[in-house]
Protein backbone atom coordinates (compact mmCIF):
# COMPACT_ATOMS: atom_id res chain seq x y z
CA UNK A 1 0.00 0.00 0.00
CA UNK A 2 1.80 3.07 -1.24
CA UNK A 3 0.34 5.38 1.37
CA UNK A 4 3.43 7.48 1.53
CA UNK A 5 4.06 7.71 -2.15
CA UNK A 6 3.98 11.48 -1.99
CA UNK A 7 6.25 12.19 0.89
CA UNK A 8 9.10 10.96 -1.15
CA UNK A 9 12.63 11.89 -0.28
CA UNK A 10 14.60 13.06 -3.31
CA UNK A 11 16.35 9.97 -4.52
CA UNK A 12 18.89 10.61 -7.19
CA UNK A 13 21.59 13.08 -6.19
CA UNK A 14 22.37 15.38 -9.03
CA UNK A 15 26.08 15.71 -9.59
CA UNK A 16 26.78 19.11 -11.04
CA UNK A 17 25.56 22.58 -10.20
CA UNK A 18 24.98 23.32 -13.89
CA UNK A 19 22.83 20.25 -14.20
CA UNK A 20 20.61 21.55 -11.42
CA UNK A 21 20.35 24.97 -13.03
CA UNK A 22 19.34 23.43 -16.36
CA UNK A 23 16.74 21.28 -14.60
CA UNK A 24 15.27 24.32 -12.89
CA UNK A 25 15.11 26.24 -16.15
CA UNK A 26 13.31 23.31 -17.76
CA UNK A 27 10.89 22.89 -14.85
CA UNK A 28 10.20 26.62 -14.60
CA UNK A 29 9.43 26.83 -18.31
CA UNK A 30 7.09 23.91 -17.87
CA UNK A 31 5.48 25.65 -14.90
CA UNK A 32 4.85 28.74 -17.01
CA UNK A 33 3.13 26.59 -19.64
CA UNK A 34 1.00 24.92 -16.95
CA UNK A 35 0.09 28.24 -15.32
CA UNK A 36 -0.45 30.25 -18.49
CA UNK A 37 -4.10 29.24 -19.01
CA UNK A 38 -4.92 30.20 -15.41
CA UNK A 39 -3.18 33.55 -15.75
CA UNK A 40 -4.81 34.21 -19.11
CA UNK A 41 -8.21 33.44 -17.57
CA UNK A 42 -7.63 35.76 -14.62
CA UNK A 43 -6.23 38.51 -16.81
CA UNK A 44 -9.10 38.38 -19.31
CA UNK A 45 -11.69 38.29 -16.53
CA UNK A 46 -10.55 41.76 -15.43
CA UNK A 47 -10.38 43.39 -18.85
CA UNK A 48 -12.62 45.89 -20.53
CA UNK A 49 -14.02 44.73 -23.91
CA UNK A 50 -11.49 46.96 -25.69
CA UNK A 51 -8.52 45.31 -24.03
CA UNK A 52 -10.06 41.86 -24.37
CA UNK A 53 -9.87 42.24 -28.12
CA UNK A 54 -6.50 43.91 -28.41
CA UNK A 55 -3.37 42.99 -30.31
CA UNK A 56 -0.74 42.64 -29.01
CA UNK A 57 -2.53 40.91 -26.12
CA UNK A 58 -2.71 42.79 -22.86
CA UNK A 59 -1.57 40.80 -19.82
CA UNK A 60 -2.13 43.34 -17.09
CA UNK A 61 -5.32 45.31 -17.68
CA UNK A 62 -4.80 49.08 -17.43
CA UNK A 63 -8.29 49.54 -16.10
CA UNK A 64 -9.42 46.76 -13.81
CA UNK A 65 -12.96 45.87 -14.84
CA UNK A 66 -14.37 44.42 -11.63
CA UNK A 67 -17.85 44.80 -12.98
CA UNK A 68 -17.26 41.74 -15.21
CA UNK A 69 -17.76 39.73 -12.05
CA UNK A 70 -20.91 41.53 -10.95
CA UNK A 71 -22.32 41.20 -14.46
CA UNK A 72 -21.48 37.49 -14.55
CA UNK A 73 -23.09 36.89 -11.17
CA UNK A 74 -26.21 38.91 -11.99
CA UNK A 75 -26.78 37.19 -15.33
CA UNK A 76 -26.44 33.63 -14.04
CA UNK A 77 -27.51 32.18 -10.67
CA UNK A 78 -23.97 31.18 -9.72
CA UNK A 79 -24.99 31.08 -6.06
CA UNK A 80 -27.60 28.49 -6.87
CA UNK A 81 -25.10 26.49 -8.98
CA UNK A 82 -22.70 26.50 -6.05
CA UNK A 83 -25.38 25.38 -3.64
CA UNK A 84 -26.41 22.56 -5.98
CA UNK A 85 -22.83 21.46 -6.49
CA UNK A 86 -22.22 21.48 -2.75
CA UNK A 87 -25.39 19.53 -1.95
CA UNK A 88 -24.71 16.97 -4.67
CA UNK A 89 -21.01 16.58 -3.88
CA UNK A 90 -21.48 16.15 -0.14
CA UNK A 91 -24.43 13.78 -0.53
CA UNK A 92 -22.79 11.60 -3.17
CA UNK A 93 -19.55 11.37 -1.22
CA UNK A 94 -21.18 10.52 2.10
CA UNK A 95 -23.65 8.05 0.60
CA UNK A 96 -21.08 6.38 -1.61
CA UNK A 97 -18.58 5.89 1.20
CA UNK A 98 -21.32 4.73 3.56
CA UNK A 99 -22.83 2.14 1.22
CA UNK A 100 -19.46 1.03 -0.14
CA UNK A 101 -17.83 0.63 3.26
CA UNK A 102 -20.79 -1.38 4.59
CA UNK A 103 -20.69 -3.67 1.56
CA UNK A 104 -16.90 -3.85 1.64
CA UNK A 105 -17.10 -4.83 5.31
CA UNK A 106 -19.42 -7.70 4.44
CA UNK A 107 -17.19 -8.81 1.56
CA UNK A 108 -13.98 -8.55 3.56
CA UNK A 109 -14.90 -9.57 7.11
CA UNK A 110 -18.10 -11.64 7.07
CA UNK A 111 -18.82 -15.04 5.63
CA UNK A 112 -22.04 -15.78 3.84
CA UNK A 113 -23.25 -17.95 0.97
CA UNK A 114 -22.79 -16.37 -2.43
CA UNK A 115 -20.13 -13.97 -1.29
CA UNK A 116 -17.58 -14.73 -3.97
CA UNK A 117 -20.15 -14.84 -6.72
CA UNK A 118 -21.55 -11.48 -5.68
CA UNK A 119 -18.13 -9.92 -5.41
CA UNK A 120 -17.28 -11.25 -8.84
CA UNK A 121 -20.41 -9.53 -10.17
CA UNK A 122 -19.24 -6.25 -8.65
CA UNK A 123 -15.81 -6.73 -10.21
CA UNK A 124 -17.28 -7.55 -13.61
CA UNK A 125 -19.12 -4.23 -13.77
CA UNK A 126 -15.89 -2.31 -13.12
CA UNK A 127 -14.94 -2.70 -16.74
CA UNK A 128 -18.20 -1.39 -18.14
CA UNK A 129 -17.93 2.28 -19.02
CA UNK A 130 -20.41 4.82 -17.70
CA UNK A 131 -21.67 5.48 -21.23
CA UNK A 132 -23.24 2.03 -21.39
CA UNK A 133 -25.38 2.51 -18.28
CA UNK A 134 -26.02 6.21 -18.85
CA UNK A 135 -29.00 5.85 -21.20
CA UNK A 136 -30.97 3.26 -19.17
CA UNK A 137 -30.22 5.29 -16.04
CA UNK A 138 -31.69 8.33 -17.72
CA UNK A 139 -34.80 6.30 -18.52
CA UNK A 140 -35.01 4.95 -14.96
CA UNK A 141 -34.70 8.47 -13.58
CA UNK A 142 -37.56 9.62 -15.82
CA UNK A 143 -39.73 6.63 -14.89
CA UNK A 144 -39.23 7.39 -11.22
CA UNK A 145 -40.23 11.00 -11.84
CA UNK A 146 -36.81 12.20 -10.74
CA UNK A 147 -35.86 14.12 -13.86
CA UNK A 148 -34.44 17.55 -12.91
CA UNK A 149 -34.36 16.76 -9.18
CA UNK A 150 -31.66 16.24 -6.56
CA UNK A 151 -32.52 12.53 -6.43
CA UNK A 152 -31.42 12.20 -10.05
CA UNK A 153 -28.20 14.08 -9.42
CA UNK A 154 -27.35 12.22 -6.21
CA UNK A 155 -28.70 8.66 -6.14
CA UNK A 156 -27.35 6.99 -9.30
CA UNK A 157 -23.77 8.17 -8.63
CA UNK A 158 -24.05 7.24 -4.94
CA UNK A 159 -23.34 3.58 -5.63
CA UNK A 160 -19.98 2.49 -6.87
CA UNK A 161 -18.53 -0.92 -7.47
CA UNK A 162 -15.11 0.71 -7.66
CA UNK A 163 -15.29 2.25 -4.17
CA UNK A 164 -16.58 -1.04 -2.78
CA UNK A 165 -13.70 -2.87 -4.41
CA UNK A 166 -11.11 -0.36 -3.17
CA UNK A 167 -12.34 -0.47 0.43
CA UNK A 168 -12.74 -4.23 0.39
CA UNK A 169 -9.09 -4.59 -0.65
CA UNK A 170 -8.03 -2.35 2.21
CA UNK A 171 -10.31 -3.99 4.78
CA UNK A 172 -8.96 -7.47 4.00
CA UNK A 173 -5.51 -6.24 4.95
CA UNK A 174 -6.54 -5.41 8.53
CA UNK A 175 -5.63 -8.20 11.00
CA UNK A 176 -8.58 -10.48 11.75
CA UNK A 177 -7.53 -10.88 15.40
CA UNK A 178 -9.01 -7.44 15.99
CA UNK A 179 -12.50 -8.64 15.03
CA UNK A 180 -12.16 -11.74 17.14
CA UNK A 181 -11.03 -9.74 20.16
CA UNK A 182 -13.90 -7.31 19.72
CA UNK A 183 -16.41 -10.15 19.34
CA UNK A 184 -15.18 -11.77 22.53
CA UNK A 185 -15.85 -8.42 24.19
CA UNK A 186 -19.39 -8.69 22.87
CA UNK A 187 -19.17 -6.22 20.00
CA UNK A 188 -21.70 -6.56 17.19
CA UNK A 189 -20.61 -6.50 13.57
CA UNK A 190 -21.96 -3.00 13.18
CA UNK A 191 -19.87 -1.96 16.14
CA UNK A 192 -16.75 -3.58 14.64
CA UNK A 193 -17.37 -1.83 11.33
CA UNK A 194 -17.73 1.53 13.04
CA UNK A 195 -15.20 1.30 15.90
CA UNK A 196 -12.52 -1.03 14.56
CA UNK A 197 -12.44 -1.10 10.77
CA UNK A 198 -13.35 2.47 9.88
CA UNK A 199 -10.92 4.14 12.33
CA UNK A 200 -8.13 1.92 11.03
CA UNK A 201 -8.94 2.90 7.46
CA UNK A 202 -8.48 6.64 7.87
CA UNK A 203 -5.99 7.21 5.05
CA UNK A 204 -7.88 5.21 2.45
CA UNK A 205 -11.22 6.74 3.46
CA UNK A 206 -9.74 10.24 3.18
CA UNK A 207 -8.20 9.42 -0.19
CA UNK A 208 -11.45 7.98 -1.48
CA UNK A 209 -13.49 10.91 -0.11
CA UNK A 210 -11.29 13.41 -1.93
CA UNK A 211 -11.35 11.36 -5.11
CA UNK A 212 -15.13 10.97 -5.10
CA UNK A 213 -15.90 14.55 -4.11
CA UNK A 214 -13.56 16.06 -6.69
CA UNK A 215 -14.97 13.85 -9.44
CA UNK A 216 -18.52 14.67 -8.40
CA UNK A 217 -17.80 18.38 -8.16
CA UNK A 218 -16.35 18.41 -11.69
CA UNK A 219 -18.76 15.87 -13.23
CA UNK A 220 -20.33 17.26 -16.36
CA UNK A 221 -22.08 14.59 -18.45
CA UNK A 222 -24.55 13.12 -15.94
CA UNK A 223 -25.86 16.46 -14.57
CA UNK A 224 -26.09 17.69 -18.16
CA UNK A 225 -28.39 14.80 -19.01
CA UNK A 226 -30.71 14.80 -16.01
CA UNK A 227 -31.28 18.52 -15.46
CA UNK A 228 -32.95 21.11 -17.61
CA UNK A 229 -33.88 23.99 -15.31
CA UNK A 230 -31.41 26.61 -14.17
CA UNK A 231 -32.41 25.92 -10.57
CA UNK A 232 -31.09 22.35 -10.72
CA UNK A 233 -27.84 22.92 -12.60
CA UNK A 234 -24.52 22.19 -10.99
CA UNK A 235 -21.55 24.48 -11.50
CA UNK A 236 -20.04 22.78 -14.60
CA UNK A 237 -23.40 22.58 -16.38
CA UNK A 238 -24.24 26.13 -15.37
CA UNK A 239 -20.94 27.36 -16.70
CA UNK A 240 -21.45 25.60 -20.02
CA UNK A 241 -24.88 27.21 -20.46
CA UNK A 242 -23.36 30.55 -19.52
CA UNK A 243 -21.22 30.08 -22.61
CA UNK A 244 -24.32 29.84 -24.78
CA UNK A 245 -25.59 33.12 -23.40
CA UNK A 246 -22.44 35.14 -24.03
CA UNK A 247 -21.04 34.08 -27.34
CA UNK A 248 -18.08 36.41 -27.63
CA UNK A 249 -17.95 38.29 -24.34
CA UNK A 250 -14.82 36.50 -23.28
CA UNK A 251 -14.15 38.77 -20.31
CA UNK A 252 -17.49 37.71 -18.80
CA UNK A 253 -16.96 34.05 -19.66
CA UNK A 254 -13.54 34.14 -18.02
CA UNK A 255 -15.00 35.85 -14.94
CA UNK A 256 -17.49 32.98 -14.77
CA UNK A 257 -14.65 30.47 -15.09
CA UNK A 258 -12.75 32.13 -12.26
CA UNK A 259 -15.87 32.02 -10.10
CA UNK A 260 -16.26 28.32 -10.86
CA UNK A 261 -12.61 27.40 -10.47
CA UNK A 262 -11.24 29.50 -7.67
CA UNK A 263 -12.62 27.78 -4.55
CA UNK A 264 -11.36 24.34 -5.56
CA UNK A 265 -7.96 25.75 -6.49
CA UNK A 266 -7.66 27.51 -3.13
CA UNK A 267 -8.59 24.36 -1.23
CA UNK A 268 -6.13 22.44 -3.40
CA UNK A 269 -3.28 24.83 -2.67
CA UNK A 270 -3.91 24.54 1.07
CA UNK A 271 -4.40 20.78 1.10
CA UNK A 272 -2.13 19.86 -1.80
CA UNK A 273 -0.76 16.66 -0.32
CA UNK A 274 -4.19 15.26 0.46
CA UNK A 275 -5.48 16.00 -3.02
CA UNK A 276 -2.57 14.42 -4.82
CA UNK A 277 -2.54 11.40 -2.56
CA UNK A 278 -6.29 10.95 -2.83
CA UNK A 279 -6.31 11.07 -6.60
CA UNK A 280 -3.15 9.06 -7.09
CA UNK A 281 -4.12 6.33 -4.61
CA UNK A 282 -7.66 5.98 -5.87
CA UNK A 283 -6.52 6.27 -9.46
CA UNK A 284 -4.17 3.37 -8.91
CA UNK A 285 -6.91 1.25 -7.38
CA UNK A 286 -5.48 1.56 -3.88
CA UNK A 287 -2.12 0.04 -4.55
Amino acid at each position, binding site marked *: MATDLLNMPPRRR*IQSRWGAVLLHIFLLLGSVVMLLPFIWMLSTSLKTPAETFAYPPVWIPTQIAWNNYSRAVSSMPFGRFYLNSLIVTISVTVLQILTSSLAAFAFARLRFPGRNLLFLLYLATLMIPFQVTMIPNFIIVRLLGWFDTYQALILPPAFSAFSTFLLRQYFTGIPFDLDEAARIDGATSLRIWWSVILPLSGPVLAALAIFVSLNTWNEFLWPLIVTNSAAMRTLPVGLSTFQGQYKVEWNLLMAGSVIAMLPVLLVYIVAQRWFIRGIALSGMGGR
Partner: protein
Amino acid sequence: MATQAEQPSLPTVAKRSRGGWRPGRQNEAYLFLLPSLLGFLLFIVIPVLGSLALSLMRWNLLTPPQFIGLNNYIEIFTRDPLFIQAFGNTLFYAVTIVPLQLVAGLTVALALNQGIRGVKFYRLIYFMPVVSSVVAAALIFQWMFNRDFGIVSAVFWWLGDVTGLPIAPPDWLNSSAWAKPAVVLLTVWKNMGFTMVIYLAGLQSVPEELYDAAKVDGASPWQQLLNITLPMVSPTTFFLLIIQMIGAFQLFSEPFVMTRGTGGPAGATMSIVMYIYQAAFKYSQMGKASASAWVLFAFIFACTLVQNWLQRRWVHYETGEG
Protein backbone atom coordinates in the same frame (compact mmCIF):
# COMPACT_ATOMS: atom_id res chain seq x y z
CA MET B 1 -4.85 -6.25 -9.29
CA ALA B 2 -3.82 -6.87 -5.71
CA THR B 3 -4.96 -10.45 -5.87
CA GLN B 4 -2.73 -11.43 -3.00
CA ALA B 5 -5.03 -9.49 -0.70
CA GLU B 6 -7.85 -11.86 -1.50
CA GLN B 7 -6.13 -14.85 -0.04
CA PRO B 8 -7.01 -14.61 3.65
CA SER B 9 -10.72 -14.23 3.11
CA LEU B 10 -11.52 -16.95 0.62
CA PRO B 11 -13.97 -19.27 2.33
CA THR B 12 -13.00 -22.88 2.17
CA VAL B 13 -15.37 -25.77 2.54
CA ALA B 14 -13.49 -26.99 5.59
CA LYS B 15 -14.15 -23.76 7.42
CA ARG B 16 -17.89 -24.12 6.99
CA SER B 17 -18.10 -25.79 10.44
CA ARG B 18 -20.35 -24.11 12.94
CA GLY B 19 -17.55 -23.25 15.34
CA GLY B 20 -17.55 -19.58 16.20
CA TRP B 21 -20.33 -18.69 13.80
CA ARG B 22 -23.50 -17.90 15.59
CA PRO B 23 -26.70 -18.35 13.60
CA GLY B 24 -27.82 -15.02 12.26
CA ARG B 25 -24.35 -13.88 11.36
CA GLN B 26 -25.02 -14.71 7.73
CA ASN B 27 -28.23 -12.73 7.54
CA GLU B 28 -26.36 -9.90 9.13
CA ALA B 29 -23.94 -9.87 6.20
CA TYR B 30 -26.85 -9.37 3.82
CA LEU B 31 -28.01 -6.40 5.87
CA PHE B 32 -24.58 -4.81 5.45
CA LEU B 33 -24.79 -5.44 1.73
CA LEU B 34 -28.38 -4.35 1.29
CA PRO B 35 -27.98 -0.59 0.67
CA SER B 36 -25.11 -1.08 -1.74
CA LEU B 37 -26.77 -4.02 -3.45
CA LEU B 38 -30.04 -2.17 -4.04
CA GLY B 39 -28.26 0.72 -5.70
CA PHE B 40 -25.94 -1.63 -7.54
CA LEU B 41 -28.87 -3.57 -8.99
CA LEU B 42 -30.99 -0.53 -9.85
CA PHE B 43 -28.29 1.77 -11.24
CA ILE B 44 -25.69 -0.64 -12.57
CA VAL B 45 -26.89 -4.20 -13.21
CA ILE B 46 -30.36 -3.39 -14.56
CA PRO B 47 -28.99 -0.56 -16.76
CA VAL B 48 -26.33 -2.86 -18.20
CA LEU B 49 -28.96 -5.44 -19.15
CA GLY B 50 -31.34 -2.70 -20.23
CA SER B 51 -28.73 -1.16 -22.44
CA LEU B 52 -28.07 -4.48 -24.10
CA ALA B 53 -31.79 -4.90 -24.75
CA LEU B 54 -32.15 -1.31 -25.95
CA SER B 55 -29.35 -1.78 -28.44
CA LEU B 56 -31.55 -4.32 -30.24
CA MET B 57 -34.50 -1.97 -30.47
CA ARG B 58 -35.65 1.16 -32.14
CA TRP B 59 -37.07 3.56 -29.60
CA ASN B 60 -37.59 7.32 -29.54
CA LEU B 61 -39.10 7.41 -26.00
CA LEU B 62 -42.51 8.37 -27.43
CA THR B 63 -43.75 5.41 -29.46
CA PRO B 64 -43.44 1.83 -28.15
CA PRO B 65 -40.01 0.27 -28.65
CA GLN B 66 -39.65 -2.02 -31.62
CA PHE B 67 -37.33 -5.03 -31.79
CA ILE B 68 -35.00 -4.76 -34.78
CA GLY B 69 -32.28 -7.30 -33.98
CA LEU B 70 -28.79 -6.22 -34.89
CA ASN B 71 -29.93 -3.47 -37.22
CA ASN B 72 -28.62 -0.67 -35.01
CA TYR B 73 -25.16 -2.19 -35.10
CA ILE B 74 -25.33 -2.74 -38.84
CA GLU B 75 -26.61 0.77 -39.38
CA ILE B 76 -23.89 2.61 -37.45
CA PHE B 77 -21.19 0.72 -39.31
CA THR B 78 -22.61 0.81 -42.81
CA ARG B 79 -25.00 3.75 -43.16
CA ASP B 80 -23.78 6.31 -40.66
CA PRO B 81 -20.72 8.28 -41.81
CA LEU B 82 -20.88 10.39 -38.64
CA PHE B 83 -20.29 7.33 -36.45
CA ILE B 84 -17.34 6.27 -38.58
CA GLN B 85 -15.99 9.81 -38.39
CA ALA B 86 -16.44 9.91 -34.59
CA PHE B 87 -14.72 6.54 -34.36
CA GLY B 88 -11.79 7.84 -36.40
CA ASN B 89 -11.59 11.03 -34.34
CA THR B 90 -11.57 9.02 -31.13
CA LEU B 91 -8.74 6.87 -32.47
CA PHE B 92 -6.86 10.05 -33.33
CA TYR B 93 -7.39 11.30 -29.76
CA ALA B 94 -6.13 8.04 -28.29
CA VAL B 95 -3.01 7.73 -30.44
CA THR B 96 -1.99 11.34 -29.82
CA ILE B 97 -3.07 11.94 -26.23
CA VAL B 98 -1.70 8.72 -24.73
CA PRO B 99 1.92 8.96 -26.01
CA LEU B 100 2.09 12.71 -25.35
CA GLN B 101 0.84 12.18 -21.79
CA LEU B 102 3.28 9.37 -21.11
CA VAL B 103 6.32 11.18 -22.55
CA ALA B 104 5.51 14.52 -20.90
CA GLY B 105 4.64 12.93 -17.55
CA LEU B 106 7.75 10.77 -17.49
CA THR B 107 10.01 13.64 -18.55
CA VAL B 108 8.79 15.91 -15.76
CA ALA B 109 8.87 13.06 -13.25
CA LEU B 110 12.47 12.27 -14.20
CA ALA B 111 13.44 15.92 -13.80
CA LEU B 112 11.75 16.05 -10.39
CA ASN B 113 13.42 12.85 -9.28
CA GLN B 114 16.97 14.23 -9.48
CA GLY B 115 17.15 15.38 -5.88
CA ILE B 116 16.70 19.07 -6.67
CA ARG B 117 15.01 21.63 -4.46
CA GLY B 118 11.45 22.82 -4.88
CA VAL B 119 9.91 19.47 -5.80
CA LYS B 120 6.77 20.27 -3.80
CA PHE B 121 6.38 23.61 -5.53
CA TYR B 122 6.69 22.13 -9.01
CA ARG B 123 4.38 19.28 -8.14
CA LEU B 124 1.78 21.76 -6.88
CA ILE B 125 1.82 23.60 -10.20
CA TYR B 126 1.98 20.64 -12.56
CA PHE B 127 -0.88 18.91 -10.75
CA MET B 128 -3.09 22.00 -10.61
CA PRO B 129 -4.94 21.35 -13.91
CA VAL B 130 -5.88 17.86 -12.70
CA VAL B 131 -8.08 19.23 -9.92
CA SER B 132 -9.59 22.08 -11.92
CA SER B 133 -12.97 21.94 -13.60
CA VAL B 134 -12.80 20.51 -17.10
CA VAL B 135 -15.60 22.79 -18.28
CA ALA B 136 -13.78 25.92 -17.11
CA ALA B 137 -10.51 24.61 -18.57
CA ALA B 138 -12.17 23.95 -21.93
CA LEU B 139 -13.61 27.46 -21.92
CA ILE B 140 -10.16 28.92 -21.29
CA PHE B 141 -8.64 26.87 -24.08
CA GLN B 142 -11.43 27.85 -26.42
CA TRP B 143 -10.50 31.46 -25.73
CA MET B 144 -6.76 30.76 -25.98
CA PHE B 145 -7.31 29.21 -29.40
CA ASN B 146 -9.46 32.07 -30.65
CA ARG B 147 -8.04 32.86 -34.07
CA ASP B 148 -7.93 36.63 -33.80
CA PHE B 149 -7.33 37.42 -30.14
CA GLY B 150 -6.35 34.15 -28.49
CA ILE B 151 -2.97 33.96 -26.82
CA VAL B 152 -1.84 31.00 -28.92
CA SER B 153 -2.62 32.82 -32.14
CA ALA B 154 -0.88 35.92 -30.79
CA VAL B 155 2.38 33.98 -30.85
CA PHE B 156 1.88 33.28 -34.57
CA TRP B 157 0.94 36.89 -35.36
CA TRP B 158 3.95 38.08 -33.39
CA LEU B 159 6.30 35.71 -35.24
CA GLY B 160 4.87 37.01 -38.50
CA ASP B 161 5.48 40.60 -37.46
CA VAL B 162 8.98 39.99 -36.24
CA THR B 163 10.20 37.94 -39.17
CA GLY B 164 8.20 39.74 -41.83
CA LEU B 165 7.13 36.35 -43.17
CA PRO B 166 3.50 35.66 -43.98
CA ILE B 167 2.92 33.60 -40.82
CA ALA B 168 -0.71 33.41 -39.74
CA PRO B 169 -2.29 31.08 -37.19
CA PRO B 170 -4.78 28.48 -38.38
CA ASP B 171 -8.38 29.14 -37.49
CA TRP B 172 -8.00 26.47 -34.82
CA LEU B 173 -11.48 25.46 -33.75
CA ASN B 174 -13.05 26.28 -37.11
CA SER B 175 -10.52 24.28 -39.06
CA SER B 176 -11.12 20.60 -39.63
CA ALA B 177 -7.37 19.98 -39.52
CA TRP B 178 -6.52 21.99 -36.38
CA ALA B 179 -9.55 21.59 -34.14
CA LYS B 180 -8.58 18.09 -32.99
CA PRO B 181 -5.00 19.08 -32.04
CA ALA B 182 -6.45 21.91 -29.94
CA VAL B 183 -8.61 19.37 -28.06
CA VAL B 184 -5.56 17.12 -27.68
CA LEU B 185 -3.50 19.95 -26.18
CA LEU B 186 -6.24 20.76 -23.68
CA THR B 187 -6.47 17.11 -22.62
CA VAL B 188 -2.73 16.65 -22.28
CA TRP B 189 -2.38 19.90 -20.29
CA LYS B 190 -5.26 18.85 -18.05
CA ASN B 191 -4.12 15.31 -17.25
CA MET B 192 -0.36 15.41 -17.47
CA GLY B 193 0.01 16.04 -13.71
CA PHE B 194 -1.65 12.71 -12.97
CA THR B 195 0.77 10.80 -15.19
CA MET B 196 3.65 12.68 -13.56
CA VAL B 197 2.60 11.80 -10.01
CA ILE B 198 2.14 8.12 -10.83
CA TYR B 199 5.53 8.04 -12.57
CA LEU B 200 7.16 9.75 -9.58
CA ALA B 201 5.83 6.97 -7.37
CA GLY B 202 7.12 4.40 -9.85
CA LEU B 203 10.57 5.99 -9.97
CA GLN B 204 10.82 5.84 -6.20
CA SER B 205 10.84 2.08 -6.32
CA VAL B 206 13.83 1.77 -8.67
CA PRO B 207 16.70 0.51 -6.52
CA GLU B 208 19.56 2.99 -6.32
CA GLU B 209 22.11 0.15 -6.44
CA LEU B 210 21.28 -0.44 -10.09
CA TYR B 211 22.47 3.04 -10.97
CA ASP B 212 25.58 2.69 -8.81
CA ALA B 213 26.47 -0.53 -10.56
CA ALA B 214 25.86 1.02 -13.97
CA LYS B 215 28.10 3.97 -13.14
CA VAL B 216 30.88 1.61 -12.13
CA ASP B 217 30.50 0.00 -15.54
CA GLY B 218 30.76 3.44 -17.15
CA ALA B 219 27.18 3.71 -18.42
CA SER B 220 26.18 7.16 -19.64
CA PRO B 221 23.05 8.84 -18.22
CA TRP B 222 21.31 8.07 -21.51
CA GLN B 223 22.23 4.39 -21.27
CA GLN B 224 21.06 4.35 -17.66
CA LEU B 225 17.72 5.77 -18.77
CA LEU B 226 17.29 3.22 -21.55
CA ASN B 227 18.59 0.18 -19.71
CA ILE B 228 17.58 0.77 -16.11
CA THR B 229 14.92 3.43 -15.68
CA LEU B 230 12.61 2.59 -18.58
CA PRO B 231 12.53 -1.19 -17.94
CA MET B 232 12.10 -0.62 -14.20
CA VAL B 233 9.12 1.73 -14.62
CA SER B 234 7.56 -0.32 -17.42
CA PRO B 235 4.83 -1.71 -15.11
CA THR B 236 3.87 1.90 -14.33
CA THR B 237 3.94 2.71 -18.02
CA PHE B 238 1.69 -0.24 -18.74
CA PHE B 239 -0.78 0.79 -16.05
CA LEU B 240 -0.85 4.39 -17.31
CA LEU B 241 -1.12 3.26 -20.91
CA ILE B 242 -4.24 1.26 -20.13
CA ILE B 243 -6.05 3.87 -18.06
CA GLN B 244 -5.09 6.78 -20.32
CA MET B 245 -6.24 4.80 -23.32
CA ILE B 246 -9.59 4.06 -21.69
CA GLY B 247 -9.87 7.73 -20.72
CA ALA B 248 -9.10 8.90 -24.26
CA PHE B 249 -11.73 6.58 -25.72
CA GLN B 250 -14.26 8.14 -23.34
CA LEU B 251 -13.38 11.74 -24.11
CA PHE B 252 -16.47 13.92 -23.93
CA SER B 253 -16.34 17.17 -21.96
CA GLU B 254 -13.21 18.51 -23.63
CA PRO B 255 -14.44 18.43 -27.26
CA PHE B 256 -18.03 19.12 -26.17
CA VAL B 257 -17.29 22.38 -24.34
CA MET B 258 -14.55 23.51 -26.68
CA THR B 259 -16.85 23.27 -29.69
CA ARG B 260 -19.95 24.48 -27.83
CA GLY B 261 -21.60 21.11 -28.05
CA THR B 262 -21.38 20.86 -31.84
CA GLY B 263 -18.46 18.50 -32.33
CA GLY B 264 -17.66 20.67 -35.31
CA PRO B 265 -16.44 21.88 -37.67
CA ALA B 266 -18.40 19.29 -39.68
CA GLY B 267 -17.93 16.60 -37.05
CA ALA B 268 -14.15 16.99 -37.00
CA THR B 269 -13.91 16.91 -33.19
CA MET B 270 -16.86 14.60 -32.47
CA SER B 271 -15.84 11.75 -30.18
CA ILE B 272 -17.75 8.49 -29.83
CA VAL B 273 -19.20 9.58 -26.49
CA MET B 274 -20.32 12.88 -28.03
CA TYR B 275 -21.93 10.87 -30.81
CA ILE B 276 -23.72 8.70 -28.22
CA TYR B 277 -24.85 11.81 -26.35
CA GLN B 278 -26.23 13.40 -29.52
CA ALA B 279 -27.94 10.24 -30.72
CA ALA B 280 -29.64 9.72 -27.36
CA PHE B 281 -30.42 13.20 -26.13
CA LYS B 282 -30.66 15.28 -29.28
CA TYR B 283 -32.24 12.83 -31.71
CA SER B 284 -33.90 10.46 -29.17
CA GLN B 285 -32.41 7.40 -30.87
CA MET B 286 -32.10 5.36 -27.68
CA GLY B 287 -31.44 2.07 -29.49
CA LYS B 288 -28.77 3.41 -31.78
CA ALA B 289 -27.08 5.27 -28.94
CA SER B 290 -27.04 2.11 -26.79
CA ALA B 291 -25.60 0.06 -29.65
CA SER B 292 -22.86 2.66 -30.08
CA ALA B 293 -22.08 2.49 -26.36
CA TRP B 294 -21.67 -1.28 -26.63
CA VAL B 295 -19.41 -0.90 -29.65
CA LEU B 296 -17.33 1.52 -27.58
CA PHE B 297 -17.17 -0.98 -24.73
CA ALA B 298 -16.23 -3.83 -27.05
CA PHE B 299 -13.51 -1.70 -28.57
CA ILE B 300 -12.09 -0.66 -25.19
CA PHE B 301 -12.21 -4.27 -24.07
CA ALA B 302 -10.45 -5.52 -27.20
CA CYS B 303 -7.73 -2.86 -26.98
CA THR B 304 -7.14 -3.70 -23.33
CA LEU B 305 -6.81 -7.39 -24.18
CA VAL B 306 -4.37 -6.63 -26.99
CA GLN B 307 -2.28 -4.41 -24.73
CA ASN B 308 -2.34 -7.06 -22.04
CA TRP B 309 -1.08 -9.57 -24.54
CA LEU B 310 1.59 -7.23 -25.92
CA GLN B 311 2.87 -6.31 -22.45
CA ARG B 312 4.71 -9.63 -22.16
CA ARG B 313 7.16 -8.30 -24.71
CA TRP B 314 8.03 -5.07 -22.99
CA VAL B 315 6.86 -4.91 -19.39
CA HIS B 316 9.53 -5.90 -16.92
CA TYR B 317 8.33 -7.48 -13.68
CA GLU B 318 10.61 -8.05 -10.73
CA THR B 319 10.54 -11.75 -10.03
CA GLY B 320 11.99 -11.36 -6.56
CA GLU B 321 14.54 -14.07 -7.32
CA GLY B 322 18.21 -13.82 -8.06
